[in-house]
């Protein structure tokens, strides 16, 4: 293929990618988006590969593609509760690819064409490897935390001077990078380069260890953005516009999702990355002991049967307990009685953006009954029963009223405005963030203690048993 043909193919691939994202605007057309994306990818790969005068080691390429496909296929079959981990892992792979290509290009040019190492290219290479490698280890850490690996600390790890150390490491890496930009062919340059790589790798780890599980949706989005930007930097290094456009699309997607997540928690980027959530609250949780009102599953089932509007508020606890299919049974039972059932989806419920929607869709709950927070809140005063399953912070009224609460100002689902609230909770301990939830002590709230899957299953059984008596 000639240079022009390759470039025109890249143009086509870019258009296909833009259409791909455009079709994601509606679940009805979304799958078209996948096909368009696959087509764009195929065009891009073939156009690049089909340059026989330049690309000669076809065996290497073929083998690497084959191995990648062999590992990628099982990764696409993971249970949907594990999707956040898989996503983090794929950000790690993306970062790694960018870092490695940057490294290879630098050493190639250093030995075989130092005139290529212009200041601009060096800026791009440094950006590529710093972003690439920090995304690699950072995403691996995030994936480890999400997978709850034993050797990865789940709770945020903090220590004195943490931010100073982290920032110092990053500045050191950037400073060394600046030195290489000024003098890319210095004698010590090939030795400095691995130091920058090592600093970026360490920085990635240190960036993620102070971040707790509740902040994972934001962190995954930010890492998504970084992975995209590292692809952009690769495009600048290789003078390749397809890489720049595709990377920019990924980068802006990560940016927008991060902004949505931050807004849904009323926090800023810096606060998520450097705020070390989870430390302060541990102390705040030590308050006077208030008493819960517990209810039996039978009682709850009776109240549910008498309602006309039921709003189910799912949270991460539902995912952990794998309760989505049992929830579907309850949904069916209530629906068969002519009761309106809606799901109130908080943007940060779960461990990544949109996580709850996917889990509920898996249980074949029609997506038309999955309602966003802003929309459902206006209906909450008319709601007869709010059924809170494994959600905690996203329904905590303290976010509205208590200025001293660490989550003050975060938009919440107004479950407390429903006529009756049933909250399913595993234990009497405070939730992930360690914050007491006023909702559980409310006049109209009754607790159903137990594993979400077991309790919801019992509820479904009660409802199906009771249906004969009507």
């Amino acid at each position, binding site marked *: 293929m000639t240079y022009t043909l390759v470039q025109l193919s890249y143009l086509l691939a870019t258009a296909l990618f833009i259409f791909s994202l455009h079709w994601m605007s509606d679940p009805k057309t979304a799958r078209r988006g996948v096909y368009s994306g696959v087509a764009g990818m195929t065009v891009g790969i073939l156009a690049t590969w089909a340059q026989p005068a330049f690309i000669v080691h076809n065996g290497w390429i073929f083998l690497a*593609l084959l191995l*990648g496909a062999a590992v990628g296929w099982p990764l696409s079959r993971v249970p949907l509760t594990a999707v956040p981990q*898989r996503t983090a892992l794929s950000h790690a792979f993306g970062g790694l*690819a960018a870092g490695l290509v940057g490294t*290879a290009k630098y050493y190639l040019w250093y030995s075989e064409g130092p005139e290529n190492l212009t200041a601009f290219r060096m800026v791009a290479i440094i950006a590529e490897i710093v972003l690439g490698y920090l995304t690699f280890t950072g995403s691996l850490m995030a994936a480890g935390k999400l997978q709850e690996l034993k050797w990865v600390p789940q709770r945020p790890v903090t220590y004195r001077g943490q931010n100073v150390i982290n920032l110092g490491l990053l500045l050191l890496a950037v400073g060394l990078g600046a030195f290489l930009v000024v003098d890319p062919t210095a004698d010590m340059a090939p030795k400095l380069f691995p130091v920058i790589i090592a600093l970026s790798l360490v920085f990635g780890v240190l960036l993620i260890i102070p971040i707790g599980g509740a902040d994972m949706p934001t962190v995954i989005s930010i890492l998504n953005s970084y992975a995209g930007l590292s692809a952009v930097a690769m495009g600048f290094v290789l003078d390749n516009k397809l890489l720049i456009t595709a990377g920019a699309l990924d980068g802006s997607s990560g940016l927008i999702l991060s902004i949505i997540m931050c807004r849904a928690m009323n926090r800023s980027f810096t606060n998520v990355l450097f705020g070390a959530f989870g430390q302060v609250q541990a102390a705040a949780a030590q308050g006077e002991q208030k008493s819960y009102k517990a209810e039996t599953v039978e009682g709850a089932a009776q109240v549910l049967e008498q309602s006309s509007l039921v709003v189910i508020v799912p949270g991460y606890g539902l995912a952990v307990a794998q309760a989505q299919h049992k929830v579907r049974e309850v949904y069916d039972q209530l629906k068969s009685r002519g009761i309106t059932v809606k799901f109130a989806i908080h943007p940060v419920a779960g461990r990544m953006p949109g996580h709850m929607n996917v889990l509920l869709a898996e249980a074949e709950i*029609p997506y038309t009954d999955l309602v966003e927070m802003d929309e459902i809140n206006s209906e909450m005063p008319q709601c007869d029963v709010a059924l809170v399953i494994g959600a905690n912070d996203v329904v905590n009224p303290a976010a509205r009223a208590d200025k001293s609460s660490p989550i003050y100002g975060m938009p919440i689902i107004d479950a407390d405005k429903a006529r009756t609230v049933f909250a399913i909770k595993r234990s009497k301990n405070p939730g992930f963030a360690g914050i007491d939830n006023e909702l559980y002590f409310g006049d109209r709230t009754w607790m159903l203690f137990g594993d979400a899957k077991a309790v919801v299953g019992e509820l479904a059984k009660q409802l199906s048993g009771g249906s004969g008596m009507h």
Partner: protein
Amino acid sequence: MFRLALPLRGAVASLAALVLAASLAVASEDAAAGGGHGATQALDLPSMLFVFMLSTFIGIGVIRRVSRLLHTPLMSLTNAISAIAVVGAILVTGPDYPPHIRFLGAVALFASMTNIVSGFLITNRMLKMFKTREGGEKGVQK
């Protein structure tokens, strides 16, 4: 539902920073090139920056319209798309470069291909689940 102001401000700020850094780099290059040997690489930097800026704005415009229902599949889709880094990896693995360079390229190629395959497949798998009515016709169709 979603105000433009904030992401725009962020995008404009980062673009401004990037253009500034790029102009500085270009300026220093021009100064260094003085003698005229800079002609060896006809890199069209401004046009690359144009491409970056425009695709970022298109990205923001398109992504803002994506249904919130689909944010998880969106992330796996954009992830697969950004695995177009595979093109860069091919350009490092394929040519007649020293083996250690090509090895780094091959590992990058492997990593990108993993993302392409798993990203597109899992996106498709998730999207298949989004239905309008129970058991009824699929809301998601080709």
